């Protein structure tokens, strides 16, 4: 029988599934605060990181999470692998699986790869970001960060704006689903060129300018603006992008007192964030990174755990 996967937010089955993981994350935060932050919950399990695209932070976050739960970890990176020698994706998966794998943590620049991989393996597949499509653990850590920072059980009634390159963003696609599932009112803010061709069925409102909205936000979520979008005629210049959609000092001054500022990283300082984030009282950008480890521990424990609990290694 094949194991459960976490490839998209949708697979968590709505608010209950998301909240269960956020509650589990609370326990992991407690584990991480122990003098010896390691539990034997996943001893004997093997987690393989399959990163076909560079991502030092997400990979380290997953590896740290797996190690704190005492799982064995293996690393597969494209630069040192036989993928460069013409091996197909399927061959790679079947070869690695033959070594005994309980979960693959997959990052790939192509949308959908975790779904393809799950057809070729019995192991759990955890999506660590696929193309423009999904990045479910990022969305979970974002939800966790918001609810912790605002001291709320869920995101009911919060006004959240996601600003920037929605079209090419897996973070946006996962966040929209997760935020909306938890009851937030989500606004996408971008020029039409940076929105998907259709948002039919998305539980969102769309705006093409930020200034009319900024004072009413509980969360301002800024996406990374990639330089290559200029050459694709999607926006005229970074300067114009910053002027219209960047968090400038003038806009920062208009944020509500309690409003949070978030970013999935890595930040383009001076572009989407044109102020020093350390001087923004509402910035929870470093908390997002810190919470990433606990959220990923919760995900690994949920998918691979055998119900032995989170007691200390004795």
């Amino acid at each position, binding site marked *: 029988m094949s194991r459960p996967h976490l490839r998209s937010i949708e697979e968590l089955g709505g608010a209950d599934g998301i909240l269960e993981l956020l509650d589990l994350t609370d326990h992991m935060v407690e584990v991480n605060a122990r003098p010896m932050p390691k539990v034997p919950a996943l001893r004997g399990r093997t987690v393989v990181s399959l990163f076909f695209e560079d991502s030092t932070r997400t990979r380290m976050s997953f590896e740290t999470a797996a190690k704190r739960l005492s799982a064995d970890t293996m690393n597969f990176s494209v630069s040192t692998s036989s993928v460069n020698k013409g091996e197909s*994706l399927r061959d790679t998966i079947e070869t690695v699986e033959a070594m005994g794998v309980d979960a693959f943590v997959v990052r790939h620049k192509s949308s959908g790869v975790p779904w*393809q991989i799950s057809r070729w393996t019995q192991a759990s597949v955890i999506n660590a970001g696929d193309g423009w499509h999904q990045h479910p653990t990022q969305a979970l850590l974002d939800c966790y960060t918001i609810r912790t920072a605002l001291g709320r059980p869920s995101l009911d009634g919060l006004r959240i704006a996601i600003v920037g390159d929605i079209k090419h963003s897996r973070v946006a696609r996962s966040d929209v689903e997760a935020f909306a599932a938890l009851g937030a009112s989500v606004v996408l803010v971008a020029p039409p060129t940076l929105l*998907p061709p259709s948002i*039919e069925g998305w539980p969102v409102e769309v705006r093409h300018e930020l200034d009319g909205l900024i004072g009413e936000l509980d969360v301002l979520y800024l996406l990374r603006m990639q330089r290559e979008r200029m050459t694709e005629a999607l926006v005229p210049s970074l300067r114009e992008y910053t002027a219209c959609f960047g968090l400038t000092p003038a806009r920062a001054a208009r944020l509500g007192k309690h409003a949070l500022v978030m970013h999935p990283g890595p930040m383009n300082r001076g572009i989407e964030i044109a102020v020093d984030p350390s001087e923004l009282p509402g910035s929870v950008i470093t908390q997002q990174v810190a919470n990433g480890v606990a959220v990923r521990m919760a995900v690994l424990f949920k998918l691979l755990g055998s119900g032995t609990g989170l007691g200390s290694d004795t």
Partner: protein
Amino acid sequence: MSSLVIKGGRVLDADGERVADVRVEGGVVTEVGAGLSGDRTLDASGCYVSPGFVDLHTHLREPGREEAETVETGSRAAAKGGFTAVVAMPNTEPPHDSLAVVEHVRRAGERAGLCEVAPSGCITMGRAGEQLAPMAELAAAGVRLFTDDGNGVQDPLVMRRAMEYARGLGVTLAQHCEVASLTKGAVMHEGSCCSRLGLPGWPALAEELMVFRDIELARLTGCRIHLLHLSTVRSVELVRAAKADGLPVTAEACPHHFTLTDELLASYDPVYKVNPPLRTAADVAALKAGLADGTIDAIATDHAPHPSEAKEQPLDQAPPGMLGLETALSLAIGELGLDLPRVVALLSWRPAAIAGLEARHGGPIAPGRPANLAVFDPDLTWTVVPAKLASKSRNTPYAGRSVRGKVRHTVYGGDVVVLDGEAQR
């Protein structure tokens, strides 16, 4: 001279339907009537006997991509699908822009002896859209359909000159309608599905702009054009209007475009990646209506084999294309809601005329006519099993699907090349 009698079937051709036996001798039909006998009998009870089918759009992959298909394996798939002629697309390596390649493909077809392989010719050298291919030389060698399929001819001036030149030769230009700058990196239809799935979209407009441009160029030049694998509502409307204006425009649609939609890409299975892409239910309905009212002249398969390893790549890296020869008849019977005479017209005599093959294929089943025939059971239900297909590749989107209507025998040049569903060569 030994004789073959196809016995107990209903003969169906452009002249209508009747219960009759068909005697074949020396590669031609010698008698059509009741109670015939001969040296060998082919049982056709419960079956229709029709002119063989003609596929305007087959990728045989040889030369260059023999790991996917060869002229022989593709011909075998064609014969099993009831096709007695296929137009071989030019996007081989090297492409069909020289007499040597065209003759290689034709002769490989003759060696296989399973159906007529009619090579198309390139419109431009290397299918690069710049310099015209030697169309007169290729036309003199029998090429009737010219296309850069896989690529559309992007430059309107080059296409205009190609049309003017082709008109002088009396040949047809077939366009792969895709404005390439609008489809860079595209994986699937642009719409709500691709937006949700995070995949780059292939907008309907990229096809329709070129359909419009080429219809207007045909109006200007008087060249006969054929529009390949139409896939959108507006493309069908544009062709309908062009025909109402009396322009020399024909068009084809593929079974996958009138049976499948872009929702299937939610599986991220590259078997559903094809160019042009699977589109929406509204597009499917428009194609069916176009086939029903004659706006679209022919069903063509766009049979595009790829080896498993190519289709096991990430979706954006996997090549587009799907098999089609062995399932076309079933899908046409089962999905179009048309009566059999119209289905067979779309598969046989209409495409035969577009391909310039009407002297040998698609004609009435009558004494003196070449014996290129399909014998099919329109009610037999079967399940598509990739490993049982004759193609060298397995990339059918219909794996496991139960379909209705199956070719029982195929007669090519008077020889039984498929008997009871099994290829004889």
